[in-house]
């Protein structure tokens, strides 16, 4: 297999048959060719790993969290990040985090936190902490990292605490679950809508096509954020978190499917004229068979790429909505909800670490965008 890989870079060059093993290129299924091409794109490969890591956090936030994200302790508000240190008094040491001491400023009455170099909490891997069910199934109390000798409010806050003294790192892991899954679910919904309507539009053409295309144009001309805001403002305040969650995904998908529908329609239109489709029809294959076993497989890779590129947009949109207070609402935790804490200059100046969730948004969106671009290039047999 490695020898084959070495040959793949010249996949599209005429002299591809030169070395031994190259014949594998000709019998490889489409997904394998795509994977070989994708593998060449180093940045996309790195992004893939980033996405895998974030997905892992989203799948089991409890494991990555160090504290219960909902425990509030007003006395421990706005503690700055207690990052993991590797050097103590100028000498290298096993990873640990310093403790903090708080002192109330006599004039402003604000708690001023300072790093206490006397107290050190060594980092332990797979340490015991609060109990939870891994993936909702296995009861356990193991966490990726823990701090020896720390309990309750002493546990170091890797990314600091917010206004209510909640641990930001733990909240971030939980927020990852909601933010990422909203993106995924909303994109899944719009993909279904997009494939369905785009497929109908492209396959049947004529009047149906015209109506759907005008509808798409209309929806695309709407200014998205105001419309999303209005729709989410219409959600009753009394709804439970899960209902709001699904409503938000539906709202996002409502305007999000148009781009995919266009893509699918374009593919259908060009494929309809291809010889292999004509051949299938001539042999007497049914319409469903022509669509699902001949046409769909030949553009699945494009759909996957387009979908990957749509997820970051959805994540950003959810962040916008929640940030403005019209998306997910507390007690739900999402990146946007967390960023709401840093909505004005005052809180940012007092506690800049409240902006860290934004960094997560950027990294996730960046990784997904690069991954999507890599997939798109790999899926296109004509790209060099």
């Amino acid at each position, binding site marked *: 297999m490695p020898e084959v890989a070495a040959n793949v870079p010249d996949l599209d060059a005429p002299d591809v048959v030169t070395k031994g093993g190259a014949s594998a290129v000709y019998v490889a299924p489409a997904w394998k060719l795509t994977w070989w091409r994708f593998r060449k794109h180093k940045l996309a490969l790195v992004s893939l790993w980033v996405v895998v890591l974030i997905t892992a956090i989203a799948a089991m936030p409890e494991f990555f969290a160090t504290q219960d994200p909902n425990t509030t302790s007003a006395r421990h508000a706005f503690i700055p990040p207690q990052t993991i240190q590797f050097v103590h008094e100028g000498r290298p040491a096993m990873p640990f985090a310093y403790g903090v001491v708080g002192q109330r400023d006599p004039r402003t009455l604000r708690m001023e936190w300072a790093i206490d170099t006397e107290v050190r909490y060594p980092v332990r891997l797979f340490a015991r902490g609060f109990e939870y069910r891994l993936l909702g199934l296995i009861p356990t109390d193991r966490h990726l990292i823990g701090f020896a000798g720390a309990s309750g409010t002493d546990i170091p806050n890797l990314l600091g605490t917010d206004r209510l003294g909640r641990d930001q790192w733990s909240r971030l892991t939980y927020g990852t679950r909601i933010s990422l899954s909203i993106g995924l679910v909303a994109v899944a919904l719009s993909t279904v809508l997009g494939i369905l309507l785009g497929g109908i539009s492209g396959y049947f053409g004529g009047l149906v096509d015209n109506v759907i295309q005008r509808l798409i144009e*209309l929806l*695309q*001309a*709407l*200014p*998205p*954020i*105001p*419309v999303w*805001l*209005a*729709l989410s*403002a*219409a959600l*009753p305040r009394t709804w439970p978190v899960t209902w709001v969650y699904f409503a938000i995904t539906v709202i996002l998908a409502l305007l999000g499917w148009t781009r995919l529908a266009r893509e699918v329609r374009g593919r259908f239109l060009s494929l309809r004229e291809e010889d292999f489709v004509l051949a299938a029809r001539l042999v007497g294959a049914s319409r469903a068979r022509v669509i699902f076993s001949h046409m769909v497989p030949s553009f699945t890779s494009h759909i996957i790429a387009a979908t990957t590129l749509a997820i*970051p947009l959805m994540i*950003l949109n959810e*962040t*916008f909505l929640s*940030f*403005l*207070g*019209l998306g997910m609402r507390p007690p739900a935790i999402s990146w946007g909800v967390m*960023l709401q804490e*840093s*909505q*004005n*200059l005052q809180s*940012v*100046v007092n506690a*800049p670490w409240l*902006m860290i969730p*934004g960094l997560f*948004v*950027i*990294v996730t*969106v*960046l990784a997904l*965008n*690069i991954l999507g671009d890599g997939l798109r290039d790999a899926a296109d047999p004509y790209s060099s």
Partner: protein
Amino acid sequence: MHWFILKRLLVVPFMLFIFSIISFVLIQAPPGDFLTSYIAELTQGGSSVDQAQIDALRQTYGLDRPMVEQYFTWIGRMLQGDLGVSLEWNRANSELIGERLLLTLLLTTFSLLFTWAVAIPIGIISATRKYSLVDYVFTVLNYIGLATPNFLLALVLMWIAFDRFGLSVTGLFSPEFAQAPWSWARVADLMSHIWLPMIVLGVAGTAQIARVVRANLLDELGKPYSEMARAKGLPEWKLVLKYPTRVAIAPVVSTLGWYFPQLLSGGVVVSVVMSLPTIGPLLLRALVGQDMYLAGVIILLFSVLTVIGTLVSDILLAVLDPRIRMDGA
């Protein structure tokens, strides 16, 4: 040419009709009408409301009529220039929106110009120095620009300005000019404030549009007429600027169609963060307070602006590129 413009113009009323329906549906979307929330507010404040008073109010606003009738009353009043009254502010909607609309348009236009002014040179540089360090730097910046929510950029810039330089860069005016009537001094004050929101709003689009210019220019640079000019011995920079660039930036005008709504949209969030006196914060407040008639008017207004933006871009493109008007007519 005239036919093309006429055809485009004919679509406009139809689009506006649909958008007005969408806006009206959005107004009606929250459970209950605005009177319910008004009554709730009154009872919460401790004052009692009697049924007769409620009925009277309901009748004045026509809330007891069927939906379709309510829609036509609403749109009829709109066409006569009566945008209704905001319940929360107790002022005419037109009065509330007036100056904010002007500032919104100003900010959006400035961001648009900023985007073009920065994106086009970047696109040209990236295309002529393909795969060079500069090109890679811009590609990376493009990805980061796309991934950064603009409100976050606003927050970070505001934080840096405050932390490093002790500047408070919120709003569009200094306190002494906020309520003042228009004067040259006020305009100057506005200009000294508008640049930061302009950059924040324009940055993400800059990267996208630079990509468009780069791709177009790369296509053009390989064409025979470029080769011909090169063979004649024309200096490279003169050649690039004189022929292919002109062709390559024409499609940028068409980006106005989708970029303008995007700017308007993004402006909402940025304005909230930077407390700009534009329409964005007004819309948000109206939505949160369920002041739905004000919200509806604003959304309709945004849609109208979008339609105008698309129309202008279509016409500009047709003026610049004869192939399109041949196709469309």
